[in-house]
């Protein structure tokens, strides 16, 4: 199973869970991010830095595999134009230990939020658009995992 996909197309979170369950560890944790339809949002456009994204996410996954006894890791991050209700991101981890699965899943999504080179632009019904500002707490959260 490939570990990291940076892709425009959607994904089937249930199928990804099933693949992680098949890794045999007994404990599977996941996080799924979905576009919220607040403020009449029409679409969310995800931009990224293609030469950097996949390599950097692979490094983060390596670090997670190094820190926790994981049998499987799956990260999918979409780019392009997404509508409310569509998937943005999936992180799934499989381990023999539930705490390893849960903690590594939290670690990975915290890193993706604060360190993966993605930028979001919101589009509204009046034609207006707005770049999402980074939240200070996201950078702080990622630093909290520093060993």
């Amino acid at each position, binding site marked *: 199973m490939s570990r990291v996909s940076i892709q425009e197309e959607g994904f089937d979170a249930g199928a990804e869970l099933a693949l992680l369950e098949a890794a045999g560890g007994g404990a599977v944790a996941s996080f799924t*991010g979905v576009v919220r339809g607040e403020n009449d949002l029409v679409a969310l456009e*995800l*931009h*990224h*830095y293609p*030469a*950097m994204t996949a*390599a*950097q996410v692979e490094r983060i996954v390596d670090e997670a595999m190094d820190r926790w006894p994981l049998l499987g890791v799956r990260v999918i*991050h979409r780019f392009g134009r997404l509508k409310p209700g569509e998937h*943005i*991101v999936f992180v799934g981890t499989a381990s023999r230990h539930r705490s390893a699965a849960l903690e590594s899943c939290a670690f990975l*999504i915290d890193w*993706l*939020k*604060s*360190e*993966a*080179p*993605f*930028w*979001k*632009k919101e589009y509204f019904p009046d034609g207006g658009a707005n*770049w*999402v*500002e*980074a939240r200070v707490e*996201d*950078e702080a959260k990622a630093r909290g995992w520093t060993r």
Partner: protein
Amino acid sequence: MAKLDILYFAWVREIIGCDSEQVDQPPAGVTVADLIEQLAARDGGYGQALGDQLRLRAALDQRFVPLDSLVGEALELAIFPPVTGG
């Protein structure tokens, strides 16, 4: 002479109106911050996009770096706002 590719992302790209450009490799001792300051002095959207370095982050050869890092022999500098993925 060696060249440096500069990439812009998100609103930095939009305001400058350019995805990427090539400049001469800066001399030794030049930091990312120095280079951004030089670019910000240009006409067009550069001043607006690059004038406030507190709003900017950078990567050299696809690695995040602090703005006071030396550009050195890097081949690619990316300038962008703080990331908002996930």
